[in-house]
């Protein structure tokens, strides 16, 4: 139970961090009318769920929940494939 709560808090923290960085960059870009901060803000938002999956994967392995750790690793693999495919365009 304590492990679950700790993992929940870690996921919350990484999501909050990703959203804060993304929102700050987007606001900066919109206020200054510049595209570079907007681009990086969108990238920060897209990477937020990826960072969340990384935290969940590590958390699952740390608490020896192997089945769900492997499932989470599979999700990370799909996201990595998506990033690699996007780099080929």
């Amino acid at each position: 139970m304590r492990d679950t709560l700790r993992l929940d808090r870690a996921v919350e923290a990484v999501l909050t961090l990703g959203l804060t960085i993304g929102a700050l960059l987007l606001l900066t870009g919109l206020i200054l009318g510049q595209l570079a901060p907007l681009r990086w803000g969108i990238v920060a938002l897209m990477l937020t769920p990826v960072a969340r999956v990384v935290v969940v994967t590590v958390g699952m392995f740390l608490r020896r929940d192997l089945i769900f750790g492997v499932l989470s690793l599979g999700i990370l693999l799909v996201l990595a494939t998506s990033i690699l495919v996007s780099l080929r365009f």
Partner: protein
Amino acid sequence: MTLASPWFLVSMGMATGLIGSLLGLGGGVFLVPLLTLAIGAPIRVAIAASLISVIATASASATVNLKRGLVNMRLGLALEVATSIGGLLGGITSSLLSHRQLFVGFGLTLSAMGIVMAARSSRRNIIADVDLDPGLLGGRIEEGGRTYLYRAKRLPLALCSSLVAGAISGLLGVGGGIIKVPVLSAFCGIPIRVAASTSTFMIGVTAAASAFIYFGRGQIDLPLTAAIAIGTLPGSLIGARLSDKVHARSLKVIMAFVLILVAGRMLMEGL
């Protein structure tokens, strides 16, 4: 960027984020029709903007729902494998289907989901005896000051619907909650609040799997998407907090109404 004012786009993002977060849908199901029909954005640009908005909604709502213990992380992980594969395939194949085929197929799916949801709105997926084993993918939930137990049923159906939901998310930018929440709640034994919160937790990853593809193709209109995403963040946080105050049956009835309404609009567009 379209001619719509940034404030209008921020307001649109806020409204769709609020409703999407409240119902566990992500908001894309409203955003794509609004962007294409109301301000004339090209459909691919609307889908890409919607995917980013879904990521923002999902991430913001999850921070609230995790605190309240409404997210079933194990169930989410099991289904996320199927949705992320679907999302990736949907993103890659999005250029192969015509708009008409997409709209008609989506409209028919939503109609069926809306009817199922309305017919099963009085169903309660909770067990009063909390000493029973909830199983690997079940859990416990607090309602009205009491703790209840629920068990996940029909996992193959949940996985198949998650794969389809992921593919639809990649093709139409709608997040996929519109398929997952009704199926989990009506057939798989998951209480509506847990289904909505777990779906919201998952759809950020599903949307990200396709969003990278749209980003790589250069189909993201940066100012338009940024204005919508900025509105989505506070809207989602408000929606997630409000969901606690709405009765479970009311949530199902609202969702059935929304499903049928959007299905009608999609079918009109496709036929």
